[in-house]
């Protein structure tokens, strides 16, 4: 197992290398950053001066080497929007807020989908199944920005129960968490329901019934654990996506997370920040998939990494 984890982490190096190369090239083909920074009416002299100062007049491979050596030292450049603070620091400051929102969304999604899927599968083809299936389609079909606005209208403005914007007040995470978690709950309910039904058709469930076990015992002891792998996979993927920033939801709730930061950085051509977010997201995606794979082998003894 340790071997496996070490190997997986070593495998991340070439992937990260590829990501940085891609980011480097994309930033260079997406337009002249100097021109963008100085604006339309800069003189040629000013442009040349800044270009030399930023090292952009050097050959591409020399630029790449210095870019990589900066990255390796943890230097992602400075943010032009946030008073030349290091870009990495700007991003890391936003990470806790995003993690909080992602955690809330996941919690909402799991708390809704787990019982909903079990109910739907247990009473398959009966009324509870139809209700759960209807709600999960609804959850998926509703755009989260619209659902977010509805939440703000009902709970924030009409009922004044919960704060609707920013991160500072207690309970502020609830509404954006609900908005974000609702569609995820829909996806997860449908997924888990179908994998529960699949497992319920397996031979060992027939064995469990032939043993005289209560249907409830069968569901919780035999079916659920065998159905959970695909559920975990999607949770893993969604966690990674959530950690990269829920752009729309953060915008709606003015939530100071990475999504909001990245939108602002793009609008401002704050390329150092964009670059730091991309690389950080890549790391988060890879770490989450590693964690999911490790969880697999903990749940299913047949999956052995080594």
């Amino acid at each position: 197992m340790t071997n496996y984890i070490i190997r997986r982490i070593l495998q991340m190096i070439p992937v990260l290398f590829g990501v940085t190369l891609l980011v480097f090239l994309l930033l260079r083909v997406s337009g002249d950053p100097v021109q963008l920074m100085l604006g339309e009416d800069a003189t040629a002299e000013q442009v040349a001066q800044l270009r030399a100062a930023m090292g952009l007049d050097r050959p591409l491979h020399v630029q790449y080497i210095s870019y990589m050596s900066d990255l390796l030292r943890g230097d992602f450049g400075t943010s032009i929007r946030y008073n030349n603070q290091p870009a990495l620091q700007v991003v890391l400051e936003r990470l806790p807020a995003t993690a909080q929102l992602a955690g809330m969304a996941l919690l909402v999604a799991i708390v809704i989908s787990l019982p909903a899927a079990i109910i739907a599968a247990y009473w398959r083809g009966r009324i509870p199944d139809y209700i759960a299936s209807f709600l999960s389609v609804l959850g998926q079909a509703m755009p989260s920005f619209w659902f977010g606005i509805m939440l703000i209208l009902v709970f924030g403005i009409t009922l004044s129960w919960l704060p609707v914007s920013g991160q500072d007040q207690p309970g502020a995470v609830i509404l954006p968490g609900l908005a974000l978690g609702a569609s995820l709950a829909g996806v997860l309910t449908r997924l888990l329901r179908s994998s529960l039904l699949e497992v319920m058709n397996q031979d060992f469930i027939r064995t469990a019934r032939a043993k005289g076990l209560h249907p409830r015992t069968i569901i919780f002891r035999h079916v659920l654990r065998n159905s959970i792998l695909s559920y975990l996979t999607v949770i893993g993927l969604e966690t990674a996506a959530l950690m990269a920033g829920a752009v729309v939801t953060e915008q709606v709730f003015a939530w100071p997370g990475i999504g909001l930061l990245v939108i602002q950085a793009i609008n401002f051509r704050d390329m150092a920040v964009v670059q730091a977010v991309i690389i950080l997201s890549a790391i988060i995606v890879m770490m989450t998939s590693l964690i999911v794979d490790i969880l697999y082998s903990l749940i299913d003894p047949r999956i052995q990494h080594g």
Partner: protein
Amino acid sequence: MTMASGQEFPKDNEMPETHSPASTRPVLSVSNLTTALRQRDGGFQTIIDDITFDIAPKETLAIVGESGSGKSVTALSIMRLLGGKSSRISGRVELAGRNLLDLTEPQMRAIRGNDIAMIFQEPMTSLNPLMTVGAQITEVLIRHRGMTQTEARRESLHMLERVRIPEARARLDEYPHRLSGGMRQRVMIAMALVCKPRLLIADEPTTALDVTIQAQTLALMKILQEEEGMGILFITHDMGVVSEVADRTLVMLRGKAVERGSTAELFASPRHSYARALLAAVPTLGTMEGVALPQRFPAIDQVTGKAALPPPPVDTVSADEPPVLRVRNLTTRYAVGRRLIGGPKFAIHAVENVSFDLRKGETLALVGESGCGKSTLGRSVLRLVEPKSGEIQLQGTDIRKLDTTGLRRMRRSAQLIFQDPYASLDPRYRVGTTIAEPILAHGLASRAEAQERVARLLERVGLSADAANRYPHEFSGGQRQRISIARALSLEPAMIVADEAVSALDVSIKAQVLNLMLDLQESLRLAYLFISHDMAVVERISHRVAVMYLGEVVEIGPRNAVFGNPQHPYTRKLLAAVPKLEPSRRDRKPMLSNDEIPSPIRAAGYEPPKRSYRMAGTDHFVCEN
């Protein structure tokens, strides 16, 4: 459906009983059991019709029949495991004076696993893969006996010991995937018997097991039945197994009991035409003694039960022509396990140093138990799996030296038929498209010509030409296997590798498909590499036999010599384990062994010792060490 069974033959109590467990009250008494299942259109269809039988303590009743005859539905109806809304069950199922069909669901749950227990066909999938063996047994005791965890664990351990699982204590905490198929079936038996049920229902419990493991499992069941005094309802399609285990037998055909009586009588003088047909179609070991050439099965009319004698066999092998396939010192290994740096940890020695010739018009059978490498060998000779070393000459060409284009051309002369007729045809393609695909892929004919060829091929394998426009799901298993054969024939190959090609088929269908293969061999002079675990089938249809064990050929020779005068201990063991159609053998004391099929996994870099072969007769070679 009409109630035919009652008129056709007398009821149980009017029948002379050769075994007489009648002194005791039956544990289970089923009368007029009729089950209808809901169909897709919402209507109900009768699946089993008016079934009546008793089982006494210590007695084994076999229900035998082909797929779709209603054997399993009978078992599930008794257990009431069919689902209340999708089934209608009528009649009486009496256990200790209570009609199970009148019980409420909670009452019925208290009976399942307690008074009646059940084991199933697939030991691989019938255990929960995520729960330890111990947990799965203890939960039965906790449910029905109200034991504490500790008590239940002690009792489970005791039970595992009673089913003779080696190192039972350590096995309690193992997960099912760590056990072999035979050991898993023992765990299933332990789980079923742990509450000392009065009746055990065994639904094809040995069908998925290798023949030596099957023999072990049957012996174990017999011993435990003697010890526990339970009745066994044994469901099977295998007449050999019936003759080994059953005191009395019930033959089912399309949901009806067509014959019922003592097993000895059934085998000696089957009364119903279908029972006669079934028995005649069973390939039986030893029936080919003194017969040199492969023989077709007699075609049996299921209505009259009369056998039409097969045409006399024709010698299809030409000894003077060079062989179609020549294999020398072929070795195939798979790497398993990974180190942090460097190569794999282990190698599966799937095929080790195998040599043989296959002549035009000849059938060479590869026999052996699971994991012996017979399938890998079949794939290696076509380079569907890349061999590690050795020489393969197909019609004089060394195919190990071929490039991709050459390999493609080679595939025209060697084709494959697989075991599973359901999985080996693309469900989205019409049958005609499937058969024409190889012809078009090799550019052998225009689309119109290909269509004509497809029609001819379909007729050749005994289907009508308009089958080309239908989809695979519209055909039965046997028909699909005919389609697979037609597809293999479409390139006019010289050789066909048939990998367990008839193993999934019912007895009578199996006989028909095998007859077809022999017809084709005669008319097209096909060479077959016939991979099978079924010794009786192999004895019937092959010219030569190679016995494989752990990737190596331990004995190879003419079929008559290998079956009539087996030399290698493994060949003898394999032959001895095959159930025979002699109900008198049932009275022998069961011999129980714990031998497992050994694993061909070795440490990387391991080189097996050099083998030498001695000649035991003309063309008959036996591995010496």
